[in-house]
């Protein structure tokens, strides 16, 4: 009978995998939503990372 107090570390490690894209992640500057709205430069739109686009998009009302 398996002892539940013994942790199977191999199984624990195997549970964690690297999702696709993890080897392509790069640092980005997080623009505040206020900054995006104050700036008419289209290139700042979308540089909001870590804030889901729906957070700064009209869809947030839905």
């Amino acid at each position: 009978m398996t002892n539940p107090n013994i942790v199977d570390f191999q199984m624990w490690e195997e549970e964690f995998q690297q999702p696709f894209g993890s080897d392509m992640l790069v640092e980005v500057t997080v623009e505040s939503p206020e900054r995006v709205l104050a700036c008419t430069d289209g290139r700042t739109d979308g540089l909001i990372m870590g804030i889901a686009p729906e957070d700064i998009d009209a869809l947030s009302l839905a």
Partner: protein
Amino acid sequence: MAKQIAVISAHNDAHIPFVEKHLKAPILRIDPQEITRGAELSFYFDTRRSGVTYKGEDITDLKGVWLRKPQPVQAAKLPVTDSYRAYSQSAIERLTAQLLTAFPEARWLSDSFAQNRANNKALQLTLARECGFNVVPTLFTSSPEAAKQFIAVHGQCITKPLAMQFPQVSGQQMAFMSTQIGSDFMPNLTGLHLAPAIFQKLLAVDIEVRVVVVDQHVFAATVHTGKEQAKPQTTHNAHVRHHIRDGRYNQDGATSISPLGLPVDIAARCIKHCKLLRMPFGAIDLIRDIDGVWWFLENNPNGQWAFVEDATGQPIGKAIADYLEGHQ
């Protein structure tokens, strides 16, 4: 009293003045965040009528509603204890969500539910084909094998995330940008089942074009981003940055935007694409390749456009004002 035009957005949205200056009356700014500072928003219903009140003013009969970019209520900033943050946020969001159906007689730019639907990239590409656009060979997949086969067929490709949120590493915000892959650089595909992504054949680009559609009006501009390398922007996965193909990254800030006359058939397809998406507005990204062939990339239901008008003088704001007032 004349019916008003309202904009639902942050009160300091820089796009508003581009439209407001063309309206006969000052635009009514509805900023949902102001509710948290005590501004009234009320909806009334009985057998005979319904009504909407904002800051004490009856706004039931609006002529037009411009759904721009309202800021979400941030639970962390609400003046309540932690145990009440989610509760308070949920209540405020549910109240402001009633705005989306509160003005059925008004001209909306654009209807929120149409925007939701239009954000579906698979739908955009399917409709693009229906409109007669060339569609870049594209694969959305969770399968490493499918991705390998696609890359084997098309050689140099671009991979883009489907994810809309990205991790932080040691407190630093990270992102997966559009990246060129192929013989020079091949990422590990085995984790696609945990982060499905987009793969697209790499085009030999001549010009990149942003097309803003407002009802029957089309405003096109070429967008050229300087390719000069700024100081390294990343130490994490530094080898990747040379393969990034997103013009907003790794550029020295030199972006030139110039008006462009679109071929008549391309302009007509842009208008039709927005119509099929049930939206009077769209910000469409196109590419013309080195052989002169036009390709559809995507249609942003609520894309930024003020930077185009700012650079080119194209009267996009006026077109939006005219649409909201019913002049189109």
